[in-house]
């Protein structure tokens, strides 16, 4: 199955949850759609949603919650049918 890298367009801190008390946006093995967010990146005191960018199954996160990421860095992998 084709693999799609979900890329963070900006540098910053990656979060898997919208806030500390909420469940993650997406789970390993969960279904995602093109527009569905898989995480947030915080930079310059603002939060930017990272959409999956493809419809399929989120098979793997490539970074940990609260890791710092670079612009253009793949943060997750979606397998598309």
């Amino acid at each position: 199955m084709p693999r799609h890298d979900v890329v963070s367009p900006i540098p910053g801190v990656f979060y898997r949850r919208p806030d500390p008390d909420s469940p993650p946006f997406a789970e390993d093995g969960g279904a995602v759609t093109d527009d569905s967010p898989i995480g947030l990146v915080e930079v310059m005191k603002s939060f930017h949603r990272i959409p999956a960018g493809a419809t399929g199954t989120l098979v793997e996160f490539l970074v940990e919650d609260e890791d710092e990421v670079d612009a253009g860095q793949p943060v997750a992998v979606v397998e598309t049918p």
Partner: protein
Amino acid sequence: MTTIEVRKPGLSTTVQDGGRSGYYHLGIPPSGALDQYSLACANALVGNPGDAAVLEIVYMGPELAFTGPATVAVAGATIAPKVNGDERPVWESFDVAEGDVLSFDYLKAGARAYLAVAGGIDVEEKLGSRSTYALGALGGVEGRPLTEGDVLPVGSGPAGRAGLVLPVGLRPALSKQVEVRVVMGLYDHRLTDRGRAAFLDTEWTLTPVADRIGFRYTGGQLETVDREPPFGAGQDPSNIVDSPYPIGSIQVPGGVEPIVLHRDAVSGGGYMMVATVLSGDLDVVAQSAPRTRTKFVEVDLDTALRLRAERKERLVRMHAALDG
């Protein structure tokens, strides 16, 4: 008249020019492009005066639709522009036609890119500048970063020429490991010898808390001299009696996490400033993305002045290379 319609604003895209000088004593900072050299390059590539108003793009580019023809150029960070999806080079002028959509690829190096349009971004001047000072809601478009639906007028002036290229040797080096030169003071006497050595020997890392106001670094702790707080200073060892903050000054609240104040800085406060970044090296700070490893390197005032003269000569060489 050509206008630019903002379809997507990017992360925090602002109108900036050479800056708004003369009001810092009233609390209004200079603002303007954080990387002044790249501002001048972008403008020179399209035939504008070096301090004309451009768009400052940070980390992620906008999507812009042109209602008429224009000559444009991108300088600074490596964030490739695309015309209707086709990639164009940075550091080179190119034409866009009526109806063209300009977008941007991912950031590859640096942090801030400057999009110049021949004729300049013709928003109204406020206090002698078109620069956006968002904290004070002044200048640019309604004193704020661009939002979807904004329409930017392009000024009239000499038409640009496509295909001008800035020679590689005149482009700044963009690296994730940089040296930033500083003159020590005015409050470095608050540091012990160990604290001072720690400031200069530590390889600091830029945190994501880095914007037009200040850039916060992490990686060490500075030891301060014991003292009784003077009247008017707070109890923290890093507190001083309130003082003006120079642009480029490095304050260290609590002796941890130095903050380099940049061109949207607050004009004063009560934290010790242990050093001040050379004006020219504020461009290096401007092009630092989070996680950039940074050494602060001490130079004396004579060296700082010599480096300032060299920077001016470089600007002259840059203009000569493009105007010739």
